[in-house]
């Protein structure tokens, strides 16, 4: 019974995540930017903009300029998250890629790094008056959710092991649209449950920053307004209406 609930929830969460994200991306893409507003100095070319976005996503360039502590904890968390995610690939592959095998041990260190960085971000949010002022319950809950995922994950590994082979066959089964048996291991159920929640809220929460940054006009526009006329569709209509009286 539990296996079925989790299986169904996984399908639902995946659907909401993919569909929700696609919706948002489509919405952002079709919403016009009426004016050229890159934060200057901006790259003069599209290639340059590519590099700017890459630096933002790969190194958090602006955040680094802004605040070294947030950068440090934020960066550790995101890199660790990436490693941990990659480590989890092995649960979805019958033949695990060699490089996924190589990063397995690093994925574990990353788990601890994640916990640490999230803890630091959480403390910061509580202790620093300015950050506390701008925080809503959801901001704390989001960190707690991620802490819960990291903590339960590490608990499975280090506190009480679960039948990892069975988990893997459950996941592989889901990929083939078969719901197998999921071990009823408390930490595992918590872990997966929280991941499901995270997937569901991703497209409707601030987690959207992951895709939003690519649609930020101050970052994704080149500095070429004197050479190229930029005109939003609705502004064009406005001009045409005027011409036709």
């Amino acid at each position, binding site marked *: 019974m539990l296996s079925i609930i989790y299986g169904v929830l996984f399908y639902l969460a995946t659907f909401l995540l993919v569909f929700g994200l696609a919706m*948002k991306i489509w919405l*952002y893409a079709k*919403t*016009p*930017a*009426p*004016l*050229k*507003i890159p*934060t*200057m*100095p*901006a*790259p*003069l070319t599209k290639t340059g903009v590519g590099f700017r976005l890459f630096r*933002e996503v790969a190194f*958090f360039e*602006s*955040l680094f*300029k*802004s*605040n070294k502590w*947030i950068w440090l904890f*934020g960066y550790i968390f995101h890199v660790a998250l990436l490693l941990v995610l990659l480590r989890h690939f092995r649960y979805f592959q019958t033949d695990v890629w060699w490089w996924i095998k190589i990063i397995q041990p690093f994925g574990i260190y990353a788990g601890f790094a994640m916990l640490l960085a999230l803890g630091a971000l959480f403390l*910061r*949010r509580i202790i*620093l*008056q*300015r*950050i506390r*002022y*701008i*925080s*809503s*319950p*959801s901001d704390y*809950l989001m960190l707690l959710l991620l802490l819960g995922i990291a903590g339960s994950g590490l608990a499975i590994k280090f506190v009480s092991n679960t039948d990892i082979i069975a988990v893997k066959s459950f996941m592989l089964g889901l990929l083939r649209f078969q719901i197998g048996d999921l071990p009823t291991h408390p930490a595992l159920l918590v872990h997966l449950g929280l991941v499901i929640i995270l997937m569901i809220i991703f497209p*409707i*929460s*601030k987690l*959207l*920053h992951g895709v*939003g*940054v690519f*649609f*930020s*006009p*101050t*970052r994704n526009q080149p*500095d070429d*307004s*004197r050479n*190229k*006329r*930029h*005109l*939003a569709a*609705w*502004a064009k209509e*406005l001009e045409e209406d005027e011409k036709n009286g």
Partner: protein
Amino acid sequence: MVELDIKHKRGSEPLDPLAIPKIACGAMADLKPYPAHAQHNTDLGFPAELIDNWKEVAIAKIGELAKKNRAFKVYLDICVKCGACTDKCHYFLGTGDPKNMPVARQDLLRSVYRRYFTFAGKYFPWLVGAKDLTKEILDEWYTYFHQCSQCRRCSVFCPYGIDTAEISMAAREVLNSVGMGQKYCNEIIAKAEKIGNNLGLNPKALRATLEDLEEDLEDETGQKVRLPLDEKGADILLITPSADFFAEPHIDGLLGYAKVFHQAGASWTISSYASEAANFGMFIGSYENMRELSLRIRKAALDLGVKRIIFGECGHAWRVAYSFLNTLAGPFDFLDQNYPIPQHIIEYTHDLIQKGELKFDKSKNDEFRVTFHDSCNVARGSGMGGIKGGQFTLPREVLKACCNHYFDMDRDTIKESTLCCAGGGGLLTDELMDLRIKGASPRMKALRQVSNENGVTHMAAICAICKTQFSKIMPKYDYEMDDVLSVHQLVSNAIILDEPEQNDTKNEDSVEK
């Protein structure tokens, strides 16, 4: 000597322009600008006063903006409340009011957007801090979105480039749409749309002013340096802030442009129809009003048959010109495509210096030890010279070409990190003086640092608002009101004009007098 005096004026107390203040809730809650007169609201196409169904209209307007402006929508959605921007606004640094932290300012509007336009806000408002729109909230918007100079310093430091200026402009547009316009901005826009400039200076008065200035120039230089008005067939149309026609130190900048044009032998003119570079349409986030003002420039260029457009020293005007003009009033296919359209007077002067066509006697500026205030709209909203960062290097090179003593302020307070003068974005009005003084304190501390360290006495700027603002508030910080200079004022002081070839016409004139 002079420098030594300044060095010890304030002792050597440690100064940190970016020191983070203690939070002072509600510190600026009572400061709001005067509401616009009914007439000025209706002139701009807005309701005369607060309409009865303000709530529906405001919410509908937010929905409309989220459809028409990606920045608005994306920025309201993706802020992670990381707090990186919280100490980046000069108004927060100067007042300690937490609602002047960029993210908190955005949140004033975001909380309402969330309530009506997002799943979480509709069903779990308490979770995400979503709020129903009330009259109190509307009033709070009026207060705090008029405590933002739209300087975009916060957008430099946000990991996603979230630009509070965009939110602020949108909020003012929402306020205008329900009849809550601000006097200073709306009155000025109405004047500029009717008469052609922010001052309401009619063509006759403008001509008389320019003629007076021509006389001054002739007295000073002994040459016929002209300030032509409405001359058809001139090559260059100069669009400059109307403050250049009457305010100090702006006028000295205007005289500087005239001397540069004179020395270059350029044929140029000012237009009485488009006698304003400033475009306050931007401050109220109104595409339509911004466009209407921009179209005046296009019409003037067409009517006068000019080949080029050059802008005088004005911060947000240059942002509109550089970044938006092509969009709003383009394409400018009738102008000479060999020159940037439009061009900045700094680019023009810089170019002549590079070519060796301008000569300076730098010692004429030896009484000044100069630093440069990067006007935020130039620094973060525009470019110069077609190179990345040209807006930083070109004005400095022009200054160094005509001054012997130039020093930069702390790196964290200049260039893309520049601190706003605190008078921009439509806040240059007397009732907001308290905010203007406090908001300028980070900039003033940075200036004090270079005064202490390098004996800097004067600060040059290329923005009409900056100049007015500084001349008002600098006396509060132990400077004189004339310690702020126009860049072209320094050019004007040092430029060496060639002796005219024939002197006879000049003699005739002096006989007439």
